């Protein structure tokens, strides 16, 4: 069921304590900042957050972490020059980290949306990130079993939506958006523009509306 909502606060109002929330973006490109701010305001806590990073500076995801609302981060690159809030929580033992090679992160998200029960990948074989995981030699290469990552909610940013929820993105801001939209039970999208149904060329739709539940326009 697709809803167009008037505010970001309304868009995230259904997020419950203990939810797994996927958040799109790589660096600032494609980060749904307004939706993250609304998640902050809605008060949900004990969250597991899936994002490539673990927050930067004093905004967005970094503030959620600072306020102790994130129980666990699943990400590929938590440490950055300005990831001080994550660093502090990690050193204090107040946040759990599941570190995943970036391609395994993306494919595990994709697998969830595609109904795949897991997959073998050469990435990470023979490294500490494969410790304790099932391995096989396939076609002469060592490979590691990786499981899908499902989510209750995805918060993503797209450029435009049409009336049935089809989405197009902009340049490298696409990044995790399409696969997170498919992987989550409930996908919330902030867009810059909503166009009438028929206003997007079907050949150019990147995320079909079937994956989208709530759309909010952010100026």
């Amino acid at each position, binding site marked *: 069921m697709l809803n167009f909502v008037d505010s970001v606060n309304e868009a995230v109002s259904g997020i419950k304590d203990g939810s797994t929330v996927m958040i799109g973006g790589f660096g600032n490109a494609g980060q749904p900042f307004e939706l993250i701010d609304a998640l902050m305001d809605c008060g949900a806590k004990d969250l597991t957050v899936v994002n490539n990073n673990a927050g930067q500076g004093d905004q967005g995801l970094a503030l959620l972490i600072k306020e102790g609302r994130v129980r666990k981060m699943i990400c590929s690159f938590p440490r950055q020059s300005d990831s001080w809030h994550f660093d502090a929580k990690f050193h204090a033992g107040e946040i759990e980290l599941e570190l995943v090679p970036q391609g395994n992160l993306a494919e595990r998200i994709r697998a969830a949306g595609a109904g795949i029960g897991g997959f073998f990948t050469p990435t990470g074989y023979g*490294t500490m990130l494969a410790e304790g995981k099932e391995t096989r030699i396939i076609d002469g290469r060592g490979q590691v079993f990786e499981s899908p990552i499902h989510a209750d909610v995805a918060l993503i940013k797209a450029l435009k939506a049409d009336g049935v929820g089809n989405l197009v993105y902009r340049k490298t801001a696409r990044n995790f958006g399409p696969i997170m939209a498919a992987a989550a039970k409930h996908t919330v999208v902030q867009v810059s523009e909503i166009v009438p149904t028929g206003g997007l060329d079907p050949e150019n739709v990147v995320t079909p509306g079937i994956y989208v539940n709530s759309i909010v326009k952010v100026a």
Partner: protein
Amino acid sequence: MSTATSIQTSDKPLGRDALAELVARDIAPGSFVNLGIGQPTLVSNYLKPEQNITLHTENGMLGMGPEATGDQIDGDLINAGKIPVTELPGASYFHHADSFAIMRGGHLDICVLGAFQVSATGDLANWHTGAPDAIPAVGGAMDLATGAKDVFVMMTLLTREGASKIVDACTYPLTGVGCVTRVYTDKAVFLTGPDGVTVRETFGCTLEELQELVPVPLKTAE
């Protein structure tokens, strides 16, 4: 003064830019290439248009152009190091799972990475020091190391303390096993593989002098 062996191609060690120029010259025309963050990024400064190299960035783009300046800067168009870049004619965008399928699927000809250590058989350590208080962060390093057809490493041969970064076995946590095919350093270019280390050329030292710095047996092609 010792006698220079025939594989010495420079009378002094190569600086970062000269090394980047050498890597760029060694990339076959028409290649699809991913340049890692840091020193490898310098290689893009020396790629010539007639080489027709297509650059891939892990955050979902082929056909990446030079760093953006002035009003070219667009927050939606960045590289893996989160630096604003430009797009070239023929560029394409795709989502993260497709971007890493390009890597893992063996579609990239070359990736160029930095390293802490490379073993004699091409094991790579470049993501984590393993220090107890270090926050590990891997990003796309393992995917690149595993997926590209050729993995080139650029690094100084020695640490600040003078230890060789080409080692018998890596002491830092591994990024990938047996993945590195070539190592470009300030003192030499090394080819690595199951049969050990072959020196292609040296800079500012003889093979014998190089062997004194590196704790694994060095061979030459002939």
